[in-house]
């Protein structure tokens, strides 16, 4: 009887040990971010009421608009260099040409089908990271720091917006506003300028690539 109880206890002890070891090998959310590039996203939004296939011409503003610079009281805005503006605008023009659009100068009396503009913003962000408990700290399988430690981290994010407006569809506001019918948003954590600008260019390419409905050549439909 005694040996039977001991055997059962040993089986359960082994099971508990195996179970505990197994649980330490897994978490609900395995996998960790390996580089800041993984935080980059390209988001596109469009107006479902816009018939993009009817468009042909567009005008492109020759300057990248910096959104937050100069705003009074904004201490988190980061100045953006203008040395890559031309590269970015050239990329947008190349993508529009590939979609079948023809670039024209803006004429208020004969507006183009689309008005395209590029804007950018770079800002500081903040996060609080807690490091309260940790697996396998020294020889304790699960160690909780006391007192809990919290670290504030600062990061810089940048966003480039490419927008298309349809001047043929002003709303009824006074003065009338021109609706944005498509937006491509390239967002990411800033790193060195050369790396960042390549990510911006790739992101702009991706924004157009994931918007096949913009194509007016009829090839992508």
């Amino acid at each position, binding site marked *: 009887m005694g040996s039977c109880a001991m*055997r059962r206890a040993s089986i359960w002890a082994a099971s508990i040990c195996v179970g505990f070891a197994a649980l330490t090998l*897994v978490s609900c959310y395995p996998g960790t971010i390996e580089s800041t590039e993984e935080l*980059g996203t390209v*988001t596109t939004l*469009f107006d479902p009421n816009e018939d993009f296939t009817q468009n042909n011409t567009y005008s492109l503003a020759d300057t990248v608009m910096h959104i937050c610079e100069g705003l009074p009281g904004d201490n988190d805005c980061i100045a953006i260099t203008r040395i890559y503006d031309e590269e970015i605008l050239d990329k947008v023009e190349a993508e529009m040409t590939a979609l079948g659009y023809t670039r024209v100068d803006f004429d208020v009396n004969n507006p183009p089908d689309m008005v395209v503009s590029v804007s950018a913003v770079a800002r500081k962000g903040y996060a609080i990271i807690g490091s309260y408990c940790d697996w396998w700290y020294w020889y304790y399988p699960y160690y909780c720091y006391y007192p809990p430690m919290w670290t504030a981290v600062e990061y810089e994010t940048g966003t480039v917006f490419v927008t298309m407006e349809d001047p043929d569809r002003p709303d009824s506001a006074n003065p009338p506003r021109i609706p944005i019918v498509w937006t491509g948003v390239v*967002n990411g954590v800033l790193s060195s300028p050369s790396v960042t600008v390549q990510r911006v260019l790739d992101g702009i390419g991706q924004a157009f690539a994931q918007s096949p409905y913009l194509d007016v050549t009829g090839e992508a439909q």
Partner: protein
Amino acid sequence: MMKRHAVGTALLVAGLLSVSGRVASAQEWLWGLAYGFAAPQGNTKDFANDFSWRNFTVEARRINENRNMSLGLNASWNVFFEKSTRTSVLPNVPGSVTGTQYRYINSWPILLSAHHYFGHPYKPRPYIGINLGGYIIEERVEIGLVAAHETNLHFGGAPEIGITYPRGHQIWWLGARYHAIMKAGNVPDQNYLTVSLGVTAH
């Protein structure tokens, strides 16, 4: 829909416990743990295409006097994870988003089980079984600096085949379950196959 599943599960529990109680004489409980892997199928595979090694089960089975049938209860934890660069359609607004996505499915089934064992109880023997009950499933997507998740209680079941190998006071078993899980909330029906190696003791 969830309420109907809960009522169905409750009735099933009551029925199985009733049957279990009536044939309980000279029966004994087997308790055990199992570890295994899981292969996603269908919508589960579309969401997180991962051959998962994160599959744990705790199991209780009440086996009858003839040792050819058992009724029981099991609870599992399955984690599916996929890291990939994807373009996804945005929910609720016309548009899409591209980026490195961390996709997770955490599935916690709590199932009633019935098993039938063939052959001699003290030799290796095959078995078949059925598991029915509730699945708590969380789907989570992390992209950029944002995350979206949804957790629902699903109703589902898992037919099972396997083989047992008695060894002293332990019974080792190797079993495969095909989980067929119904839609709940915005999460479509889910399917995955688990293969587990377990040990029970009494």
